[in-house]
């Protein structure tokens, strides 16, 4: 009998090829570039040296941007978690006929360009934007409040981008929890809240965990919200890469920053996976 175990791979091969040529190969190029030298004339000279990496850690300027990025990412994860769990839990609990409609509303932002969505916040938060306009009109304030071009605005822009990811991740996890578990807990003496704490919440952790990781990684790599909604001090690491590569055409240094970000995120994902034990939680939950 012929071994046909290779057959399923045919189905996978187009995506594997795409991932390889469009992702793995370019990333390799970036890593190779990160060792090159940049001549004062602006030309890139093939080399193998760690000067670009050393430059990054030369003073506190670049690492501080990296730290800002990590801080903003953690803040975004935290806010997304709180603002995402509540609607996800609502979707899990509700028996309303509106549920499919509301689910579509959650995904609606995906249908609108990210740039447009981000730019539209200027019309809401700007000095002559909606909020300031209304507040001045009804006389609550005399001068417009500066709501744009700060970290708050950046996080706002990140939230509207990332909330759907968080909501859907948590919802999928919640949806897999048998509702009779909470009923059993209540019949054994739990109040609604205690049943949530004892049963529903712990069992939804795989989704929470996956959602947090996704939001964290996506935040670390994003540059549009800080570019459009942030001020000079709100630059994140992706903005730095963007500026080096597109702005000053300094490919070697831009590549080195990219590589540093890549290594950092890979380490974080690996550690997270290991200690938060995503796979471990799934193992416990599956019955077979």
């Amino acid at each position, binding site marked *: 009998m012929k071994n046909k175990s290779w057959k399923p791979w045919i189905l996978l091969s187009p995506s594997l090829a795409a991932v390889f040529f469009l992702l793995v190969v370019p990333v390799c190029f970036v890593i190779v570039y990160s060792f090159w030298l940049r001549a004062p004339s602006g030309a890139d000279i093939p080399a193998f040296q760690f000067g670009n990496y050393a430059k990054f850690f030369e003073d506190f300027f670049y690492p501080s941007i990296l730290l800002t990025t990590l801080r903003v990412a953690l803040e975004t994860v935290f806010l997304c978690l709180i603002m995402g769990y509540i609607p996800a839990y609502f979707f899990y609990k509700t028996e309303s006929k509106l549920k499919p409609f509301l689910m579509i509303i959650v995904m609606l932002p995906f249908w609108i360009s990210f740039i447009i969505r981000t730019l539209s916040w200027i019309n809401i938060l700007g000095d002559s934007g909606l909020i300031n306009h209304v507040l001045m009109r009804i006389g609550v304030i005399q001068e417009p409040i500066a709501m744009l071009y700060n970290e708050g605005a950046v996080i706002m822009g990140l939230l509207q981008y990332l909330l759907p990811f968080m909501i859907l991740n948590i919802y999928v996890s919640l949806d897999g929890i048998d509702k*009779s*578990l909470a009923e*059993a807990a209540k*019949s*054994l003496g739990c*109040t609604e809240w205690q049943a949530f704490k004892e049963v529903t919440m712990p*069992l939804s952790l795989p989704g929470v965990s996956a959602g947090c990781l996704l939001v964290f990684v996506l935040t670390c790599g994003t540059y549009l919200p800080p570019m459009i909604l942030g001020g000079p001090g709100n630059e994140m690491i992706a903005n730095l890469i963007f500026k080096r590569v597109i702005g000053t055409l300094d490919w070697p240094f831009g590549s080195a920053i990219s590589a540093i970000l890549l290594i950092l995120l890979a380490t974080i994902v690996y550690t997270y996976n290991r200690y938060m034990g995503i796979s471990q939680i799934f193992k416990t939950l599956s019955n077979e």
Partner: protein
Amino acid sequence: MVLKQEKDPAFVKFKGIEKRYGKVVAVKKMDLEIPEGSLVTLLGPSGCGKTTLLRMLAGLEEPTHGDIFIKGKRINDTPIHKRNLGIIFQNYALFPHKTIFDNVAFGLKYRSASKAIMKEKVEKALETVRLPGVGDRMPSQLSGGQQQRIALARAIVIEPDVLLMDEPLSALDENLREDMRREIDNLQQALGVTTIFVTHDQREALSMSDKVVVMKDGFIQQEGDPEEVYNNSINHFVADFLGHSNFLNAIVKEKQGDYLSVTLEDNTICLAVPAGTFNKGDKVEMVIRAQKFNLGYRADHVPEQGENVFFGKIKDRSYMGGEVSYFVELENKLVLHAINFVKRSPYRRGDEVFMKVMHEHCRLLKA
């Protein structure tokens, strides 16, 4: 043993209970009393309201109208966690992230039992369900039958006033179901806990209940002990739902002692027991259980005065191990279902047979 006080015949009481979902009425103005210490089955097809009734007692659904009493106390407004009920769910509903010990101890934790008492009670409960020593395992490490026993242990360890079981055996396979059914039955008798058992499986209902409540479309069709409900089904639905019944249209002819003689569609005359009062000329339905027929080769038939007998040809048969199920086509094309124990050589398709049935096994219902 402590002598029990006289048992409350209405330990659990539903009074005029009704449940509507929008326009759909799941349970209609129902009155039901459940005696203390008994095992009562709510039996019916899906959508008959049996689970809704159970969930209202559990506090998982709110009745639209009517009152529910436990031990004479109205519990409509008592939240579920204060009702002190043990619920067994169809899919066991064990907490997958907690050990067996923590699962069983769960209810005790919320009754603020001390560590020592908790440990003692959990161990005792695990012994009761014959699974000692599994405390530190996870639910996923146990088989379906074992998980259901843990669910049972978790429910009884809190010493509930009433044990509610919602189709607890339906997720198990056939052989295991039989064992589990006996086990629940024994356990219930040993503990003497009032138990309400919801099922759509008539065999479960008949074999373990003190009282069977047959439901359909949100109404109680009949309630009584298993023999009563099986042998004296009061209407077509109950007779049809429990066991295998044959229904024959007939017209009442005259009274003959304790029996009524009726004319069937093919003009045969039968004597039957009336379930109710009928007058001459009334249209009725004659019910005969498939097991009550006695079959023989037509050639061997010796006619007797006043016997109930049918003649026909074996149309189909299915061998079921201990018994054979025959479908016999009468001369007027009517097909009767008979189940007989296997004799030396079962009848074959096409055999001409007679089917005799005793008068008391023919019951007349309103058509």
